[in-house]
């Protein structure tokens, strides 16, 4: 297959662009100075400070619970909805509603949910952030999966139905495997967006159970310190390790191709 050479330019530009600030923050996390601008020498002291920071630890756990919970919910609901909209509905209205959360500014959704929880007199907790993140996560999953469904070959599904398979058998045996790359991409998006989401979380989280972005936001009130760079570096290292491990162990590769 031909791959035009010229395309490699933007390809590598993308990665250089995405990773330049990452390199900066990793380097700065080993800074012995506390200035974010000048590198004074190598030091691990910020990692030591980080290790003793209980707020960060709790925030991290809360964030993981929220991200995993909302990704699972959003992926399940979003995939079903995408298939439902493509195969069981002709309603333009429903199509529109399903993309709405992606169209809404986070602040509007956040305040809307704050008012909603207040109106039904719900006590906020981690669950309220999970539910909130599921709203936008689901829109992204639905949209990405529908991209995959669009123009896709429906003859197999029709054949399956004609042979008397229930919609569910057809779904699990035929549709789902075809959609796998879209579902994985959508879930990856939902997880990525949840793990670093600040605005909606700050309105829907219980004040005493903040997620990590909320904790970090309060730490950078006086500017970024190398401790926060150390935290960002650790997060990267851990997610990188997890991804590599997952790839080795579960043949993630196959589901993506």
């Amino acid at each position: 297959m031909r791959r035009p050479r010229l395309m490699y330019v933007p390809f590598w530009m993308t990665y250089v662009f995405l990773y330049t600030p990452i390199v900066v923050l990793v380097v700065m996390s080993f800074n012995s100075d506390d200035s974010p601008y000048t590198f004074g020498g190598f030091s691990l002291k910020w990692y030591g400070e980080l290790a003793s920071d209980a707020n960060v630890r709790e925030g991290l756990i809360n964030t993981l619970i929220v991200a995993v919970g909302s990704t699972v919910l959003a992926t399940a609901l979003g995939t079903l909805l995408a298939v439902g909209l493509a195969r069981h509905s002709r309603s333009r209205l429903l199509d529109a509603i399903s993309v709405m959360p992606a169209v809404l500014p986070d602040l509007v959704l956040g305040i809307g949910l704050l008012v909603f929880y207040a109106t039904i007199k719900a006590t906020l907790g981690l669950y309220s952030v999970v539910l909130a993140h599921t709203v936008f996560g689901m829109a992204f999953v639905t949209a990405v999966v529908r991209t995959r469904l669009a123009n896709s070959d429906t003859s197999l599904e029709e054949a399956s139905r004609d042979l008397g398979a229930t919609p569910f058998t057809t779904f699990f045996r035929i549709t789902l495997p075809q959609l796998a790359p879209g579902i994985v991409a959508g879930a990856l998006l939902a997880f990525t967006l949840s793990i670093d989401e600040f605005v909606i979380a700050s309105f829907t989280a219980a004040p005493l159970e903040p997620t990590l972005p909320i904790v970090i936001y309060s730490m950078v009130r006086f500017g970024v310190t190398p401790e926060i760079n150390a935290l960002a570096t650790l997060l990267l290292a851990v997610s990188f390790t997890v991804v590599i491990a997952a790839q080795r162990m579960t043949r993630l590769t196959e589901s993506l191709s």
Partner: protein
Amino acid sequence: MSRIRYTRRFPAAVMVVGLALAASACGGEAADTTAAVPAASASSAQLNPNADLSKQSVAISVWPGYTPEDLPAKVKSKLGLDLKVALHDTNEIIMAKLTAGSDTGFDVAFVSGQYAQALNEAGLLEPIHPELIPNLANLYPEAKELAYDKGNTFSVPYTWGTTGICYRTDLVKTPPTSWNDILDPPAEALKKVTMMTTERWLALPAIKALGYSVNTKSDDEIAKVKAKLLEAKPKLLGYDDTTFGDKLKSGEAVMVEAWDGWCPTTEKNIKFVVPKEGSDLWVDTMVVLKSSKNKEAAHAFINYILDPEIHGWAAETILYKVPNKAAMDSIDPALKAANAPLQMTPSQLLEGESIVDLGEDSVKFTRLATEVSAK
């Protein structure tokens, strides 16, 4: 997505509007909690001074780094009650949460003076019961003369200070003395100056340079302030509320509008000055929420904060002035000598104009800030 024709989205909007109108017809009482109710004094239920505090707990919301980290342990050993500390980054966020109508579970919140005033106007605050806070006696007499709450009826001041110019002594030729030095910076400071973004402080330098009141409501004066701010805009590096200290340390900026406590005067080349035209007086306060179920414990907590040792922590650690005479008197003189802002006396502070909530006229300042940043 290709099957979605985008014309389909319009009905969604129509439906949302329809739903909204339907809800608005009956939404009245649902979210009515923020409607203005007569101020706190109307319903000062009696609190029991002998309540068993060990059966209560206190949840507070405060700015990060604003109270000692071991405060919960101290409160537990001293008062025997559990203290839970939540953090808010800005007045705006905690105001949104407190006024949205849900029970936040907070007993005490730390907010700035004009926000305490607004919360009180909304009927969300418990009046302060002075008989439960004997340590109020530690406060300077001036601390009872604050314009947004004379006599501390619904708020207790925690820290106070003013706004001025924080600058690099090694990078400006002549030390700034006037707000005009920021609005029209000398050549060496051109494009190396920042002003604050929050509307009242965004307007402050121009207001004071023109000799107006920080609480002006006059359209004419606000228009002149706007013209002055727009004139200054091309000469600025940017607007910054949070990281001006870093910008100053790195030399990216040489002169910034700053709250006194945020000016890193511990650095050897950084100094703070209150411009000759005068400035404001800001106060960060503690308030007890009406929704609190632990009001006695909340008062006991505030009383404990006013203890010179605890209150002095704020002055010594975050270098904010506290309105507590006993606490200020016990500060290490060397620390005071090294940090000019700590030397300001209460009467000097009171020369600054206290910022009050302007009620319906406060939207004029929001509009002013939008106009300045949109141009």
